[in-house]
């Protein structure tokens, strides 16, 4: 038995048993954040808060949702929307958060790309971040199945068919994933399980990894400056806060972070109460019907860019291009061969690469929403080729980059 002194306060009591003071020091009071950052560095916190909102609204939806092909549609569109007190609110909160979270993820990703925050010890932050993106995509897709409307059914059909791997004709694999020849009861039940348990647990574990991977390299800053954290922390602790290049995570930096969160939440709830339609596809207000395809099948806006990379090609090439688009971002730290960790605008050709990539993804997104005809098909095709081309030239242009 270890020796314990009598504690004089609750804090001391907890510290003896859990080491709360050590934890607080390592994770907050002496977790140093550079001063030279801007509001874009609050996006991580905005994401964490949005995930919390998804979790809470999801818990309330879960109390009335029925994972049954005959009941699911009405349990959402009648019970939750009309009968449950404030049920409509949880649903709109959940739908808007699920859509907005991707907007923030894209901003967060492109911030990381712009400032080079994926290299020199930050590779694992980037990789865990991309795994979070994959997990969020799976979470969004599985959630989209649950209301069992027309878009749920047909998105489920089309996406699970991707696993037949084109001409390899892995139809057995597709049926195995569905638990049936077509999306039906077994399919709804298992995607329900994934949506409410397995994927959320994976997301929480990945967020833990993401934060853990941040602790030692610390966050980057607006100039990519390599900071001597020990030295700057010493200045800060000695009271010379003005001269120090860093501040403590809590409470100093947190207060700024939470200010941005507050601004975001005002915008978020404005969307929830007055402009939620963008997050609710009207086609999904028709119950699932395996014998009628909707006139246009398109995914939610955040999947459009990768869908557009699939669409203009032959089946097999389209699948390969799509798989390429899904995994390529994760390799960014290794495809960028330049040693410079500075904002893109000081990095020669990479500057143009960054803006070309951002613009190309916006074009792909826009074309993915339009019907696959005439000039739109052509623009989409070109944009898909540009996407692939940009990734192919990335190692070359970054290799040529002058060391700063």
């Amino acid at each position, binding site marked *: 038995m270890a020796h314990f002194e009598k504690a004089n306060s609750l804090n001391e009591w907890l510290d003896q048993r859990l080491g709360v003071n050590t934890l607080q020091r390592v994770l907050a009071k002496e977790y140093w954040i550079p001063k030279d950052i801007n509001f874009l560095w609050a996006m991580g916190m905005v994401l964490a808060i949005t995930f919390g909102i998804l979790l809470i609204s999801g818990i309330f939806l879960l109390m009335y949702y029925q994972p049954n092909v005959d009941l699911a549609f009405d349990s959402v569109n009648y019970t939750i929307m009309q009968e449950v007190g404030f049920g409509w609110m949880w649903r709109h909160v959940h739908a808007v958060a699920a859509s907005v979270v991707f907007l923030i993820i894209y901003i967060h990703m492109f911030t990381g790309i712009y400032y080079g925050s994926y290299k020199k010890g930050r590779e694992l932050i980037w990789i865990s971040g991309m795994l979070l993106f994959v997990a969020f995509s799976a979470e969004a897709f599985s959630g989209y199945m649950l209301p069992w409307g027309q878009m749920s059914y047909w998105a489920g059909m089309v996406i699970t068919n991707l696993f037949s791997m084109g001409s390899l004709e892995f139809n057995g694999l597709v049926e195995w994933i569905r638990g049936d020849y077509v999306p039906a009861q077994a399919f709804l039940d298992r995607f329900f399980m994934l949506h409410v348990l397995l994927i959320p647990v994976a997301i929480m574990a990945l967020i833990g990894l993401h934060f853990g991977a941040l602790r030692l390299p610390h966050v980057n800053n607006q100039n990519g400056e390599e900071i001597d954290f020990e030295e700057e922390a010493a200045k800060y602790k000695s009271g010379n806060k003005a001269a120090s290049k860093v501040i403590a995570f809590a409470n100093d930096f947190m207060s700024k972070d939470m200010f941005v969160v507050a601004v975001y939440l005002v915008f978020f709830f404005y969307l929830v109460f007055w402009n939620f339609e963008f997050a609710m596809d009207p086609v999904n207000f028709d119950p699932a019907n395996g014998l009628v395809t*909707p006139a246009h099948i398109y995914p939610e806006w955040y999947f459009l860019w990768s869908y557009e990379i699939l*669409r203009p090609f*032959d089946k097999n090439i389209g699948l390969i291009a799509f798989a390429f688009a899904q995994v390529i971002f994760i390799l960014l730290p290794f495809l960028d061969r330049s040693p410079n960790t500075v904002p893109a605008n000081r990095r020669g050709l990479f500057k143009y690469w960054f803006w070309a990539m951002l613009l190309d993804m916006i074009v792909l997104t826009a074309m993915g929403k339009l019907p696959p005809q005439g000039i739109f098909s052509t623009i989409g095709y070109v944009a898909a080729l540009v996407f692939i081309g940009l990734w192919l030239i990335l190692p070359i242009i970054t290799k040529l980059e002058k060391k700063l």
Partner: protein
Amino acid sequence: MNQTRRGFMGKAFGAVAGVGAVGALYAMKRSWDPLPSVKAAGFTTIDISACAENKLIVEKWRGKPIFVLRKTAEMVAKQDEAETARDVIVDGNHYLIAIGLCTHLGCIPAYREAKTDFKCACHGGEFDSSGINTKAPPPSPLVIPPFKINGTTLVLGESGPEYTKMKEAGIVA
């Protein structure tokens, strides 16, 4: 080789855990398999004698839509050999019988009577009235399900001689 007791216990644990993991994975895989009741979804009989010409009928088999299209004499006269080879002929009438799911990613193509072809709204694929793909992205013709002709009815899910012949000629999928 390290023969300490700890080394032995470590290996013993590894062996037990390995066997357990393989067993657990197999059980998990089997739990995701389609249920026997789903697998035995069986056979659907459809009467095709009442179909009107150039009007698409959609039946259902194993949860999938089945296209039944009775062709007009004019359509039959215009088709080439490859197209005719896919026709199911009952009482002298030519029919298209196919699973109504686009071979690209599984949407249901719509029949355009005026053009006597199918258009898939999802990614713009097209098929002719014999189910042969005429515009990408679909890579192959609509799939012909196993069928058996029984007078003027078709039994889907059972392979009759006509189906077997098509299958041998490699034109069902």
